[in-house]
């Protein structure tokens, strides 16, 4: 009897239209689930030399052993594959909430691994242990060419109102590099361009319905744990959400409702209590109003633009924080004035940070989103690949250097909670050294699973947070928490900078390893990993909660230390895929710094690049990675039980060619 996991992963080959299953037990408990299993399968099956839109790319839609259980945050899904948004494309990850992940577990599968490319547009229908590849252009289910909302509605009409759907929109069909995989109106796997991978595979949607449930090893234990576990997130002010609902509804009247994903205790966004619409425009289903937005538009216009973005299946984060400011920068440098007859709005003063860009009109946005989604015209076609690729193509490449303000370019994603370009909150030197380290070694914006957890905790809980608003926990208490959680008392000390590298590299690594657990178990990255708590006497959060949840759900007696080692194993497995298949090395890691050489947006402090290299050296050393190449060493891989990876990745004696 399997507990936690359903025991089967669905494998779909769209080229031959065949279905089979993978035994989950092959990969657990060593790789936990979610990202861990996908990383391992990618290592075993993804050969070097494959591009994001190639038939050989594998798309993973993964859940974990906690998905669909009572553990808060257990509705999430991890999406992996070679990601077209990154420049160049590399194996990366994205995740989404909603109800789909739990439904897949209830339908009897721990994940779906999608190979090949269908000869005709198809969708996948999964229900209670069975799966079918179906025609996406048939009279009854003519979903190809539709937006994600229409696709969801049509598939629910066919398979029942409780069917959960993930889909790509028109943007995915035209292989936009910034196309998302959308579920319902409020959730998407946004970063990485995985909607474009679906489109390239001619896979329009995956519809799921399940009634089978997830068996757990210790029902009473899980119940007790979930009833009494903390509901604190990354801020000392979260937790009492009844109060939050009342405050919010009092402040904005009944026009706004809190919103959250399925199977989660923490609300994380808002929706308009009524469907939004512009004068003379269509009425739009209410969409989630947090995390990103077309800022400084009216709430109605913002909701309509967000809904258009979700329906076409586009990455609004990239449009709002990447493409629009980049176009304004290009105009400031005389490269462009208007698009399709619409004048690009431009601020008077130079754009140094995201906050300096000005909001476009709803009309401009409507035009821009539509052109991008359908690849219409020169601009629409170029910008559908994201600003990062468009800059190489438009204006004879003259706009490309302007991107340095906005992106670590190889990721094609704006930095976030890193103190520079400026999406996310404020974070002050030296605390932003940790996120920059995480940026250097990751394949995507590490904010969602690693940076947020460090930056928000240190900013919002600690008195000495290097910023103007001290948190509620005194520096002395923070030293105690730091010693307990990270094994070093000085991690949150705002006076320590480059000269004590371990103070930066310990949290960078700790959060990356924990992030792998969050992404593999799967939990919500807004709730985990926790460091501080306002509910315990010594302000240390329950850092063993993951092991407790894992044990009650799966029955495997792993300690938190065992589980942390699994996190490190997964992190190294992902790195190994990146090294072997995509040539990842120290040079690539350091290339991320292009976006962080400017003074910080909140403190004006500039990164000392020479001394930062010392931090990266220490990061490698502490990781057991070779400092010359940035590759995981054979010794460390073997210590993690990745002997076969170590054997394949051994650095030749003459060294590798970096470049």
């Amino acid at each position, binding site marked *: 009897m399997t507990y936690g996991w359903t025991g089967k992963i669905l494998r779909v080959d769209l080229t031959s239209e065949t279905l089979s299953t993978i035994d989950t037990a092959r990969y657990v408990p060593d790789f936990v689930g979610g990202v861990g299993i996908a990383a391992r399968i990618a290592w075993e099956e993804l050969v070097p030399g494959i591009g994001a839109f190639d038939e050989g790319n594998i798309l993973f839609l993964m859940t974990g052993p906690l998905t669909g*259980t009572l553990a808060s945050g257990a509705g999430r899904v991890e999406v992996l594959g070679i990601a077209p948004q990154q420049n160049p494309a590399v194996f990366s990850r994205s995740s989404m909430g909603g109800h789909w992940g739990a439904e897949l577990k209830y339908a009897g599968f721990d994940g779906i691994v999608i190979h090949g490319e269908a000869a005709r547009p198809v969708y996948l229908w999964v229900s209670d242990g069975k799966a079918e590849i179906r025609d996406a252009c048939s009279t009854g289910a003519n979903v190809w060419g539709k937006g994600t909302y229409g696709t969801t509605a049509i598939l629910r009409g066919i398979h029942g109102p409780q069917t959960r759907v993930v889909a790509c929109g028109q943007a995915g069909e035209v292989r936009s590099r910034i196309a998302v995989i959308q579920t*319902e109106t409020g959730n998407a796997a946004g970063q990485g361009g995985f909607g474009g991978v679906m489109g390239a595979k001619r896979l329009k949607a995956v519809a799921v319905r399940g009634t089978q449930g997830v068996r757990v090893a210790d029902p009473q234990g*899980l119940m007790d744990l979930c009833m009494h576990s903390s509901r604190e997130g990354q801020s000392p002010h979260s937790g009492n959400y009844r109060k939050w609902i009342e405050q919010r509804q009092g402040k904005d009247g009944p026009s706004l409702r809190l919103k959250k994903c399925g199977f989660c205790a923490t609300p994380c966004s808002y929706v308009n*209590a009524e469907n939004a619409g512009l004068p003379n425009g269509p009425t739009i289903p*209410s969409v989630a109003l947090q995390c990103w937005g077309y800022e400084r538009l009216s709430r109605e216009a913002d909701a309509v633009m967000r809904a258009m973005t979700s329906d076409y299946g586009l990455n609004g984060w990239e449009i709002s924080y990447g493409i629009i400011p980049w176009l304004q920068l290009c105009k400031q440098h005389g490269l462009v004035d208007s698009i399709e007859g619409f004048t690009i709005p431009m601020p008077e003063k130079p754009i140094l940070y995201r906050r300096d860009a000005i909001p476009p009109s709803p009309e401009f946005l409507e035009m821009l989103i539509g052109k991008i989604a359908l690849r219409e015209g020169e601009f629409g076609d170029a910008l559908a690949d994201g600003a990062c690729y468009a800059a190489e193509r438009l204006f004879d490449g003259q706009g490309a250097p302007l991107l340095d303000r906005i992106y670590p370019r190889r990721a094609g994603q704006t930095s976030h909670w890193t103190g520079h370009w400026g999406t996310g909150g404020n974070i002050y030197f030296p605390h932003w050294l940790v996120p920059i380290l995480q940026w250097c070694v990751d394949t995507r914006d590490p904010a969602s699973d690693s940076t947020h957890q460090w930056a928000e905790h240190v900013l919002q809980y600690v008195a000495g947070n290097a910023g103007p608003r001290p948190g509620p926990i005194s520096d002395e208490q923070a030293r105690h928490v730091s010693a307990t959680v990270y094994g070093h008392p000085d991690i949150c000390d705002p006076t320590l900078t480059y000269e004590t590298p371990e103070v930066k590299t310990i949290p960078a690594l700790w959060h990356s390893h924990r992030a792998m657990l969050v992404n593999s178990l799967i939990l919500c990255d807004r709730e985990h990993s926790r460091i501080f708590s306002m509910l315990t006497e010594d302000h240390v959060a329950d850092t063993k909660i993951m092991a407790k949840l894992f044990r009650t759900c799966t029955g495997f007696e792993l300690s938190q230390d065992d589980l942390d080692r699994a996190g490190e194993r997964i992190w190294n497995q992902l790195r190994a895929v990146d090294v072997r298949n995509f040539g990842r090395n120290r040079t690539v890691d350091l290339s991320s710094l292009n976006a962080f050489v400017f003074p910080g947006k909140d403190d004006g402090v500039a990164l000392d690049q020479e001394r930062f290299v010392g931090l990266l050296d220490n990061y490698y050393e502490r990781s057991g990675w070779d400092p010359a190449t940035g590759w995981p060493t054979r010794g460390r891989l073997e210590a993690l039980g990745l002997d076969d990876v170590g054997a394949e990745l051994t650095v030749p004696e003459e060294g590798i060619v970096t470049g």
Partner: protein
Amino acid sequence: MNLNLNQKPVPPKRSGVIAVDREHCLACRECEVACSLYHEGECNPYLSRIRIEFSDFDPGAPSILVCKQCDWPACAFACAALWDEPALHIDPESGARTIDPELCRGCGACLRACPLTPERTVIGIDNRERRPLYFKCDLCNGRTEGPACVQICPGEALTFIPAEKRRR
């Protein structure tokens, strides 16, 4: 159960009830999972005694469907009318209108009799065995902390009202 229609009938023991406040419900469905975990030992909203109906495309508050523990339980009368040893009984301790799965014959009389059927159905059918088994909210009979759904609800959208505090 003997009902003599020439006499004023004696009502069965009253039950407590789970009161719902849909404005505070954010459709996380943790109640559904907690319910199935307590009753079935697995996480399975399909087997939950409480159901949350909502649509992401409709911004209104969700519907919370759970047994009202009626003072005059049509379900219990229907079961008793058909069977000498009725599965649907009034729990002597809590007063909860409860289905004994050992005794359920799968006839469905309770579901048909329930005034909430079909628009707001609160009696479920478990088809996993060879015969259908009907199930409904029993207020987590005997659970010291009260109904699991009430305890887990992060928004406090659910409240347990004991029999003596219920309106007539």
